[in-house]
């Protein structure tokens, strides 16, 4: 009896100890095995050019490999949903957090996650704009000239884009609405395909992500009339923003990192510190700039705030544009 009692007290003591200082004890060893980072797209997407080198540096800081697992499906929605349902133990992360699949798609279709509730933001690394591109030999040297032409010839200008419901498509729709013009859209299977259509002279313009298009800008094949970041960047020289041209359009494709909701704060902190430290390495920033992404570090709180803000921004924009919900 006495023995049993002592045992019980012993067990209780251990339990209480765990409850009070639980966090630090349970997570002191984190991470003690490889971390899976879900990239919700097929291999080869542009953001991987940032994440693969980044995770190599993060591995050194964390002492454990962070393995990219490509889980494509539904334009990024399927893989994100999987992270939303994953264990909150810090061993499953979501890459590309803050992309169209998290900020735009949930407003237009039933997503298997709630962007604001199902994820614990960790860090923001970079972003890039959508741009409106035309061939160099096109008669329109400026956005104004392009809009002017569109006004005089409604519906005749055709632009290719990487798919309806993407941030790129949304940017073009927003311009149409705000400038009072009408164009025809040609959805394609991705940024490279949309650019090929422009290069091959099949359409007059293309609305695509700047990193995909920039090598052709440098080669003087195409020209960027306008880009969608809130402020101009030296990475896209000579390119005005929509804001500068008087249109309230500020959109970016973000490369953030998130964990499932309710991931312990200590784990988020460890992860954030590793990513932040990796971000500060100059060689990594050089890589990010080389592939024409804009380094854009935000800490955990800033990331959460930014995601909230942008989620509301797209929600309102989609309502304003009158885009119906997908079935």
């Amino acid at each position, binding site marked *: 009896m006495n023995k049993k009692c002592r045992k019980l007290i012993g067990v209780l003591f251990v339990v209480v100890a765990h409850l009070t200082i639980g966090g630090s004890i349970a997570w002191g060893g984190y991470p003690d095995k490889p971390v899976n980072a879900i990239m919700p797209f097929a291999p080869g997407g542009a953001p*991987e050019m940032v994440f693969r080198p980044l995770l190599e540096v993060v591995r050194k800081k964390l002492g454990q490999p962070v393995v990219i697992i490509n889980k*494509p499906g539904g334009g990024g929605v399927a893989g994100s949903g999987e992270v939303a349902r994953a264990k909150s133990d810090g061993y499953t992360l979501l890459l590309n957090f803050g992309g169209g699949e998290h900020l735009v798609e949930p407003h237009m279709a039933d997503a298997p996650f709630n962007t604001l509730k199902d994820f614990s933001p960790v860090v923001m690394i970079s972003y890039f704009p959508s741009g409106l591109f035309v061939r160099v030999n096109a008669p329109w040297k400026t956005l104004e000239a392009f809009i002017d032409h569109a006004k005089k010839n409604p519906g005749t200008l*055709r632009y290719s884009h990487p*798919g309806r419901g993407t941030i790129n498509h949304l940017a073009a729709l927003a311009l149409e609405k705000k400038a009072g013009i009408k164009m025809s859209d*040609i959805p394609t299977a991705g940024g490279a395909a949309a650019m090929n259509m422009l290069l*091959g002279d099949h359409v007059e313009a293309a609305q695509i992500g700047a990193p995909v298009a920039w090598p052709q800008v440098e080669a003087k094949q195409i020209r960027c009339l306008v880009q969608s970041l809130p402020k101009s960047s030296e990475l896209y020289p000579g390119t005005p923003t929509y804001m500068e041209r008087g249109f309230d359009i500020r959109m970016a494709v973000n490369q953030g990192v998130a964990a499932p909701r309710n991931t312990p704060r200590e784990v988020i902190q460890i992860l954030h510190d590793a990513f932040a430290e990796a971000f500060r390495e100059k060689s990594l920033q050089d890589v990010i700039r080389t*592939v024409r992404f804009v380094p854009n570090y935000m800490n955990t709180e800033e990331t959460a705030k930014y995601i909230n803000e942008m989620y509301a921004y797209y929600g309102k924009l989609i309502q304003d544009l009158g885009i119906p919900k997908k079935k």
Partner: protein
Amino acid sequence: MDILSNVVNGLLVSLEPSNLFFCFIGCLFGTLIGVLPGLGPLAAIAFLLPITYYIPVIPAMIMLAGIYYGAMYGGSTTSILVNIPGEAASCVTCIDGYQMARQGRAGAALGIAAIGSFAAGTFGVFVLMVLAPPLARFSLRFGPPEYAALLLLALVIIATIGSRDRVKAFLMLASGAALGMIGPDPVSGNARFSLGVRELYDGVGIAPLAIGLFGVSEVLLNAEIILKQEVMKTSFKDMLPTLRDYRASWAAIVRGSGLGFFIGILPGGNPIVASFLSYGLEKKLSSHPERFGQGAIEGVAGPESANNSATSGAFIPLLSMGVPNNAVMALMLGAMMIHGVVPGPQLIDKTPQLFWGVIVSMYIGNIMLLALNLPLIGLWVQLLRVPYRLLFPVILMFCLVGVYAINYSIFEMFLVVLFGTAGYLLRKVDFDMAPIIMGLIIGPMIETAIRQSLMLSRGSFTIFVSRPIALILLAVTILVLANAFLKIRRLNVTSP
């Protein structure tokens, strides 16, 4: 400008020991993932991408390219020996390759596949050297209407692939196209026919379908009969193709090389379409089309050449324009950009060592692959001596694991089992599996091309005849069709 001096320069670059080493690693790794069903070059290149940060850009590109064309070599091995496409582009090789193996000619089939691949790879590299920039420009002229016309021609040519029974072949082609309808609508992006299953939102993958229909059904069929294993035994003498084999297949290799290269340079062109088209073409041109499906060596030589030269062709838009035309090329582009090499029209002038080094390395890689694969044939054939009760479960495991490794999807493993069962039943009633795969690939492509064309023309069908390339392709399609009808009428007249 001088091609010869460029080639010599490229040779010097690619013969540097470290570059040779990475070329070998790429070829070896490519062969291995080609042999394993499921896992394809795309996944393998993605896995290896982080390694490329630690090595200079030229060996990195040489290695990644090696994986891509190496996989095309390896893919034929599994197709021929066990009737399972090791790589999706080797589906069509199963038809005659496996029949050859059953007749004890596995060695000859493997040999001709390797030699055809080598010839095609060499051809591709040669054209790449001479014609890259102008060809790249031409390929961009291939917009949706041209693509629609080309795919229509392809459908007409390959409609009767591998089947003695036209109706059955068409049924399978249509089923494939119907399966292809599952997934996102190419215009609106809305999921179609996915029955609310989220895993189907992106459609049915090629790998689960091919591996299920060919691989699992093969194992199931063989499990119910006691196979006499000696049919597979080959003596060393039969290992290599005979003079007669060469005579029968050289033309197929030449045609497959040209065709594959052409398909390869097109935006969205892929080696799978190239191999199917080559098979269809060889069957059409053969004076003994009835031999196809019974172990015709041309049916192995043509497609294997085509898929290999398609991989060389795919490099043209990337290296000379900086435009990736499929997912593998997009990864290569990423690998270059991380090293600060800006792909684009000025790549050849700015970094000639990269351009010529990679191209010449592909030639050297092809020689390595030949040297690697010919001696391996003996080893692979030995594999068939493993008792089937051991071999089949292992194959089944590789099929499932291979598919899982592509998208880490349990659902796709279930698809493999489902398609395997369906394939087993269909083969019991004498249906061929190849057309259904063709339907799955070409169906959505042709739908996208036609709908994009009509959006470009704002609904007018004249876009298909007002553009010269599309018009020519359509005219050829009509000629092929007319010829087929004439043949049928003649047959009806002669045979009461």
